[in-house]
């Protein structure tokens, strides 16, 4: 065996190392994906009075809660039924029953969202049957709603867990679709979106468009709760009544593509009209959202929105010299990446390395055609299923000007000596980024501000005295 006795940082930065790094087949280093139950928990918190409940080992829940709390700097309420070694032998039914009873009594939820973690799945617990028995044993009242989702960590990622839980919540809470009961609402599904400000922005725009809508799920008030001097464990969420009527929606508009395919397919199977658009990042993305909603309402788009759009475009033309031709590397969830690449291409920015650990075949096709559609996308390569250690090799061997991604990218950015603009999840080393939208026309302005000012800050910090100028 050939052993390299003295590895060095310089060696890590070589093309030779990059080849070695890309040759690995099984080892995953610094992946940009979390696991299914985190997504399920995240989804469940978007329903009024809903208590997320992990059926599995207790450590999982501690991890989900702390990960979300670190990102949002908000409390995250969720329980677990704390399965231990004996549950591995006898199954977790007793834990589930006792857990439901205690959680129901202590925390008085309106609905409990049960989702599994690995242990329960590996031993083959039948949560549906267990739930039936729980009602018989009166651990919870007969008619108390409990939504179910199977979400082991060894399948999909946090976005698929979100999808499964969303379907589970609708299945649990919605009454069957009835032709004479169709409501007049547009149900909007944001997808796995970690910006409460994005959800608030959707609501603001929908109001301007005078659309009758329901945002499902809506965790904006949970993850961006006001400090009023009291703690509200259940703050906000899609009202239960709206959940009950979810299958009678006039129509659905999905604002992400890859975090909700199961739910949208399920709704379509129930004859519910469904439309899916890309996460509305960038002008064209938001235009599509406005047009879809306007088509639903049948009303004209108000001038106010046209002006708002115009202000965003004004910001684009103002700032284009700072982004045009700049090279970017990006990593994150599929929906976010499609949105950010759309935005960059609109600005004349050039995506070069795009790393998506939790890519799907549809996403790969979609991203490739998006890149092919623009002269600014020609230098880009999509690295599907790759991780941030791959990304590091890319950054040090084929340099770019900026990295876009979550806080986990900070080491790779540091090694490549480029700035990281934090977009995505989790962001644990900066404050308040989730409080400003990245979607919509205002999101366009915010993205331009973050990216441009970061570049300019670099210029100022690194310029010689002779080139230290008042204007940039």
């Amino acid at each position, binding site marked *: 065996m050939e052993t390299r006795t003295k590895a060095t940082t310089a060696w890590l930065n070589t093309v030779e190392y990059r080849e070695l790094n890309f040759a690995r087949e099984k080892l995953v280093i*610094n992946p940009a994906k979390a696991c299914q139950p985190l997504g399920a928990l995240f989804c469940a918190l978007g329903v009024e009075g809903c208590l997320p409940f992990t059926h599995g080992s*207790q450590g999982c829940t501690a991890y989900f809660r702390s990960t979300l*709390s670190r990102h949002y700097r908000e*409390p995250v309420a969720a329980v677990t039924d704390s399965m231990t070694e004996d549950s591995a032998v006898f199954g977790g039914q007793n834990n*589930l029953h006792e857990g439901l009873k205690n959680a129901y009594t202590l925390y008085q939820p309106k609905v409990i969202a049960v989702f599994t973690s690995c242990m329960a799945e590996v031993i083959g617990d039948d949560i549906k049957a267990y739930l039936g028995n729980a009602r018989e044993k009166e651990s919870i009242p007969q008619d108390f709603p409990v939504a179910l989702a199977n979400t082991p960590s060894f*399948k999909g990622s946090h976005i698929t867990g979100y999808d499964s839980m969303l379907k589970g919540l609708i299945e649990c809470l919605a009454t069957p679709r009835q032709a004479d009961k169709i409501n007049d609402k547009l149900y909007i599904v944001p997808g796995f979106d970690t910006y409460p400000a994005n959800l608030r922005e959707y609501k603001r725009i929908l109001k301007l468009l005078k659309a009758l809508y329901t945002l499902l799920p809506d965790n904006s008030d949970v993850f961006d709760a006001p400090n*009023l001097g*009291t703690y509200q464990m259940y703050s906000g969420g899609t009202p239960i009544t709206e959940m009950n009527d979810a299958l009678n929606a006039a129509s659905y508009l999905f604002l992400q593509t890859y975090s909700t395919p199961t739910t949208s397919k399920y709704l379509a199977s129930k004859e519910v009209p469904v439309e899916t658009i890309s996460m509305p990042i960038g002008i064209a993305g938001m235009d599509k959202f406005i047009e879809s909603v306007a088509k639903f309402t049948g009303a004209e788009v108000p001038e106010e929105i046209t002006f708002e759009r115009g202000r965003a475009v004004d910001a684009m033309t103002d700032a284009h010299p700072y982004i045009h031709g700049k090279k970017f590397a990006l990593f994150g969830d599929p929906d976010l990446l499609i949105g950010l690449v759309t935005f960059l291409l609109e600005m004349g920015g050039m995506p070069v390395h795009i790393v998506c650990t939790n890519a799907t075949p549809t996403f790969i096709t979609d991203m490739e055609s998006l890149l092919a559609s623009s002269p600014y996308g020609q230098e880009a390569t999509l690295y599907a299923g790759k991780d941030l250690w791959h990304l590091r090799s890319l950054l040090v061997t084929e340099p770019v000007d900026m990295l876009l991604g979550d806080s986990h990218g900070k080491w790779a950015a540091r090694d490549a000596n480029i700035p990281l603009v934090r977009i995505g999840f989790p962001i644990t080393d900066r404050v308040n980024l989730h409080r400003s939208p990245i979607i919509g026309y205002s999101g366009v302005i915010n993205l331009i501000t973050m990216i441009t000012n970061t570049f300019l800050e670099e210029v100022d910090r690194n310029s010689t005295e002779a080139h230290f100028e008042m204007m940039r």
Partner: protein
Amino acid sequence: MSIKETTDFRKQVVEDVLKIYPEKAKKDRRKHLAVKEDNCEGCAVKSNSKTVPGVMTARGCAYAGAKGVVWGPVKDVVHISHGPVGCGFYSWGNRRNLADGEIGVDNFVPFLFTSDFQENDIVFGGDKKLETIIHEVMGLFPNAKGVSVLSECPVGLIGDDIESVARRTSKDLEIPVIPVRCEGFRGISQSLGHHIANDAIRDHLLGKGPGREVGPYDIGIIGDYNIGGDAWASKKLLEEIGLNVVNIWTGDSTMEMLQNGHLVKLNLIHCTRSMNYIVKHMEETYGTPWLEFNFFGPTNIRESLLKIAKKFDQTIMEKTLIVIEKYEAAMAKVIESYHSRLSGKKVMLYIGGLRPRHMIGAYEDLGMVVIGTGYEFAHKEDYEVTIPELKEGTLIYDDVNAYELEEFVQKLKPDLVGSGIKEKYVFEKMGLPFRQMHSWDYSGPYQGYEGFPIFARDMDMAINSPTWKSIKAPWTK
């Protein structure tokens, strides 16, 4: 209120809090809650038992204890989170166990290495994959001194034989490969994970290194994970009194330090909960003595330094006295400067390993009083040494859950709560000052004379921040 009245009031609080529980849960939880009384009758609490399902516990799992706490900080070893992606992802880069070294060359602390199990691995087993992964690790990181394999839940459930893989790869690659059976379902908290991790070090590394000459002042620090640089602050102080810190377990640690843990004159143990196992083993097997110490706050520091110095010669004692004198003057100034802002302030703590006891003195040095304390995963012996240190009327809560802690805090009305990230924002929303006492709220170090002024500043900042005054809108009632 008199002490008696306070005690009775708090006992009533416990009763009131228990009322809502279903019978079975009530019976269990009652045993974990107590109020300290002078004669200490009835103030023993039950601990280290299964968490009541569904109550919103703060506890984690064996994997968290083994990977997150004990193994993760060892910097020159690659730690593979073996199993699905989640566990590794959530324990990646968020414990603040600082390490000094070249990242990717001889420091792997800021990494997540995972075998990212898929359904196929569950069905067909992950041993082959693990073997490939270990080879890939050594190809990409040839300076790694070893590989640890930290099992996640599925590994133990599907019957994988990671021990065989470890033996085989260790032989092929000529490096230690350490299997750690810390599946999350084992035990009832992080605690068993600590124990399993200790046993793995004992079985695979301790005493198996090249060895070294032991100098007269060589000591080891055991059970300090260098949160926010704590171990460095302690090391500096110990070196100032003339001792030579050759090993730290496991903050900023190396494999060689783990191999040579017994090759010292004295092991100083900081976190007894997570590493008492190994110091006892080193004493029994190699005759290496150990001593518990506490470097939080000048009172504890003085007591510990003197205790440590007594184990050595007069030179060390003389230096120690000089060091104490030198710093205590500075510490007195720190205390004085915060006195009017902190004295008499009440604190409630709920933390892990040793801090619910060790931190008390530091607060008391500032004139503050701890009125409630509890551990996430302590054992009987931890409470046995904690309870005598508590003031009469102190509320004690073991494995307290979100509901109970919120109720206790609302009834006891402390000026400051010190606990973890999961608790932090609940109390801040109530308008209550809070500090994370696992991560030092991204500050630190808090240990040693270097840490105490930072600790004092942070507690003052939390309690006296003007931001709390803005909560109430002038137009609300």
